């Protein structure tokens, strides 16, 4: 089961850097990120990192509010139409998601589409049943074997 780290941030200069400096000091690598923002001056930063449990704990120690949310990292081809095809499969699986973001993979051919499945019951099972490949944790986190 893979996790992203969701972080509550106020929209102020320096606040995002507070997060990255904690990660840097702990030698934790960011694999993918998504920053959203609301009109009320705060937002949520979602990060896929190399060690989400440790990152979450370290950020909490610094007084930063974090949550670990389950993700499903799906493999897709890095080509025009790649996401379109993938979305068809996800729809067939009956999975309605609210948050997702992507990154290219290291092999230059594929990409990784990260789905937030925290609030979607039986998401993993549904995706697998639809024939989708959910990447293993160590691939998601970029941990070399």
């Amino acid at each position, binding site marked *: 089961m893979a996790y*992203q780290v*969701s*972080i*509550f*941030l*106020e929209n102020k200069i320096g*606040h995002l850097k507070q997060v990255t400096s904690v990660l840097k000091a702990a030698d934790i690598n960011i694999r993918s990120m998504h920053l*959203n923002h*609301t009109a*009320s*001056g*705060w*937002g*949520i930063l*979602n990060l896929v990192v190399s060690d989400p449990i440790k990152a979450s704990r370290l950020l*909490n*120690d610094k*007084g*930063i*509010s*974090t*949550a670990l*949310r389950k993700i499903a990292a799906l493999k897709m081809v890095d080509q025009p139409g790649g996401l379109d095809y993938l979305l068809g499969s996800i729809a067939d699986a009956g999975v309605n998601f*609210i948050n997702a973001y992507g990154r290219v993979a290291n092999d230059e051919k594929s990409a990784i589409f990260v789905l937030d499945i*925290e*609030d979607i019951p039986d998401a993993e099972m549904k995706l697998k049943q639809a024939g989708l490949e959910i990447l293993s944790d160590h691939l998601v986190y970029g941990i070399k074997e």
Partner: protein
Amino acid sequence: MLYWEKEIETLDRTSLERLQVERLKKTISQACGSDYYGKQYKSKNITPEKINSIKHIQDLPFTTKEDLRSHFPWGFLSIPKKDVVRLHSSSGTTGNPTVIFHNRHDLSSWANLMARSLFTAGVRDTDVFQNIAGYGLFTGGLGFQYGIERLGCLSIPAGAGNSLRQIKLMRDYGTTVAHAIPSYLGRLFDVFKEEGLDPKKDTQLRKLVIGAEPHTEEHRRRIEEMFGVKAYNSFGLSEMNGPGVAFECEEQNGLHIWEDAYIVEIIDPKTFEPVHEGEIGELVMTTLDREAMPLIRYRTRDLTRFLPGTCSCGITHRRIDRIAGRSDDMFILKGCNIFPMQVEGILMKLPEVGEDYRIILEKIGDQDEMIIEVEVKKEWFRGDVNFLDRLQKQIERLIRDEVLVRPIIKLVEFGSIPKSDGKAVRVIDRRN
């Protein structure tokens, strides 16, 4: 039912009032030794002989904070300076501070009232009492200290702040009772958690005493939940000594105000007439057992009401409700009168919201706005934008329904609202 001083605490109303009249006569006599009352009473021909019933107190003029300030420092001193053994003073950052003088008798009387108050809340001489309050000119420190010692507990004069040290003291000495201001206890609890500790399991606390700033019933309940013990409300003001003026008994239904030591009136601050039974008004107090600096019909600016009826604990001294706010806490926004306690009452009902909040009044464009900074508790952050958005709108709606003005709710990072070791500053008015 045990009492610290059974006879005086259970005295029937008629005898109590007779005692008050006797003491008021003595107080007027004593007060005439001061420049202020001496001159005023002479010019108005006020003498102790004119007082024969408790109603006659209404013939005496009020004393205000401005009077105290404008006669700083010695205008209200009623005894020779060499007999004064202590003074307490307010911070007075703008203009003159207010100063209260005490002689030995005053300190002893105050210590007794404090001991009586603590005993009423169930504190006993077998308790280990940690006083987490500022020692110095702030009366919460020394005021409690003398009362704790008079009662016979093992006192730990811990002082304010330094949460790690407070926790260590509690664990080293088995603290059973602690006194602190409510806004500090939320932070102390956070530090417990950060250290991987739970006050319910890792301390011997059996009681808390809270006071020095107005706080809602909801806030008190939160504190009780956090620490797993009852938290008793304590009321006082330095002009009336300090803590030990009124205190909750174990019923926790109103604070008994000591009517052998004070004449207590509640007036309409606009008409100066006594309010109807049970109505909220301004607390006006007269000292009955102070020699160095008696105060007569002092307008406290604290708003409260008498609770009707008698208390099942048997104490005949009346109860006042928790302080609703200070008349000068109130601010006006878009023509509506708003008290910070109204906002607090709503925020504290929401488990997602932390105990620290701030109300900022600002002019945005050509409109006055109320921005309320609210901290979301860490355990409630799930990384879900919708949840936070809904929470924000919910708070907005609840507050608008209560104060009739729509606030701007700003969710801020947990722990980001500036804190002080002393009383929490809840309102910042930037409109000028």
